[in-house]
């Protein structure tokens, strides 16, 4: 588990590693969704501001939008999830990041995010 993981109220997480920021869905979000059958991720090099919708995740029951916990430019997407969305259910959530971004405004954008342990207490 990344020690510096921060979470949004819409259940996205972000952590920093080697100067990049990894964004994904919390274990709570994944357990609430159930079987994930479809993931739509953004184009590489597209930029989003904090709070913008950058993708969609679909369980058997419903489609949900995914929001940027912080703003930034998409450097890489987790390609394997496009073909195998079920990996989100089958693997530790912190390994199954959705996008990797560069985030020049991390300090400012991350002010309202909560540490994972605090977030976890609040949702459970």
């Amino acid at each position: 588990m990344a020690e510096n993981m921060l979470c949004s109220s819409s259940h996205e997480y972000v952590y920093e590693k080697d100067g990049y920021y990894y964004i994904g869905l919390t274990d709570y979000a994944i357990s609430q969704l159930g079987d994930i059958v479809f993931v739509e991720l953004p184009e590489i090099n597209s930029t989003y501001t904090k709070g913008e919708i950058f993708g969609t995740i679909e369980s058997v029951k419903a489609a949900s939008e995914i929001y940027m916990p912080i703003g930034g430019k998409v450097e890489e997407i987790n390609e394997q999830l496009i073909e195998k969305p079920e990996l989100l259910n089958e693997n530790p959530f912190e390994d199954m990041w959705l996008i990797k971004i560069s985030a020049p405004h991390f300090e400012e954008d991350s002010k309202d995010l909560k540490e994972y342990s605090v977030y976890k207490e609040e949702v459970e």
Partner: protein
Amino acid sequence: MARTYLYNNHIKLGAKMVDFAGWEMPVQYTSILEEHNNVRKNAGLFDVSHMGEIFVTGADALNFLQNLVPQNVEKLIDKKALYCQFTNENGGIVDDLLIYKLKENDYLLIVNASRLETDHNWLLKNKKAYNVNIENKSDIYSMVALQGPKASQILSEIGIPINEQPKTFYITEAKLLNEDVYISRTGYTGEDGFEIIIRNEKISELWETILEKGKPYNIMPIGLGARDTLRLEAAMSLYGNELNENTSPVEANLSWTIDKDKTQNYIGKDIIMSQLKNGTDKRLIAFKMLDRGIARHEYGIFYNNEEIGKVTSGCIAPFIGQNIGLGYIKTDKNLKVNDTIQIKIRDKMYNAMITTKDFITKHNKGN
């Protein structure tokens, strides 16, 4: 919210509970996909106690029912089930239901939970001078559905030998756990299977017995999530999605449930007969996605950039491994099976193909 007499059983099994038509029901126990596939491969047990049981008896019971449905109830032989709809003055569907003929002028009606109160009122409103007793016994009875290719073997394990089991679309009155029960060979999954009606007080014991005896057959409890994907994969309509008061059986692709030669009048007959003759402005179609995308309720259906209808149900069809759906389209384009249409998903167009309504062929025929 109301709870069925199996609520504690669901909690014990770790079910995720949701609100369905005012009932607190299990949506899944483990995984919708796993539950779905287990019903196709082995067997599953569903709590359907929220559904309504209405008994119609009396000297005019047959004539009373004949006035309410486009099917010909007169043709129904003892112990046989008939799938039909209550239609309103405009030919719209008040509810879809099963009518079982228990014996002469003695019928059991199984109706949707979401429509029970409306249905009961509909029956009372149309009772008029008919000499009938209308008894809503939904508060007395609970119901489970045992579905899947292993269902018949499991039923024999709990005391109903194969040769005493009802045939497909028949009902039998039997003794189970020293209790009088109704067992019908019906369901909402596209599989062989049974629905068992028993008094509330005995349902928990029945549930546990079936799960216990079904263990060697890999039975699983199944939630409403998989109930929905199973019925959609079997291309069956759901009241509230495909069927409503503004949609007729002709539009809903249920013309096979209309007896064209029925001489008796029934509510909405003029409109329904005229629709059969002259056609309708909209009709229900089945489709499968060609592009990668999942159609959902209320998404637009397009043809040549024109919106021609709406999706009523859509999902991943777990067993056949395709994304499928049902929806209504305008008939003026004369679209047919194998024609390509588009589904608008989050502002983008995705290709889909109109198909016949046989996503799964019934691979396990009952008896």
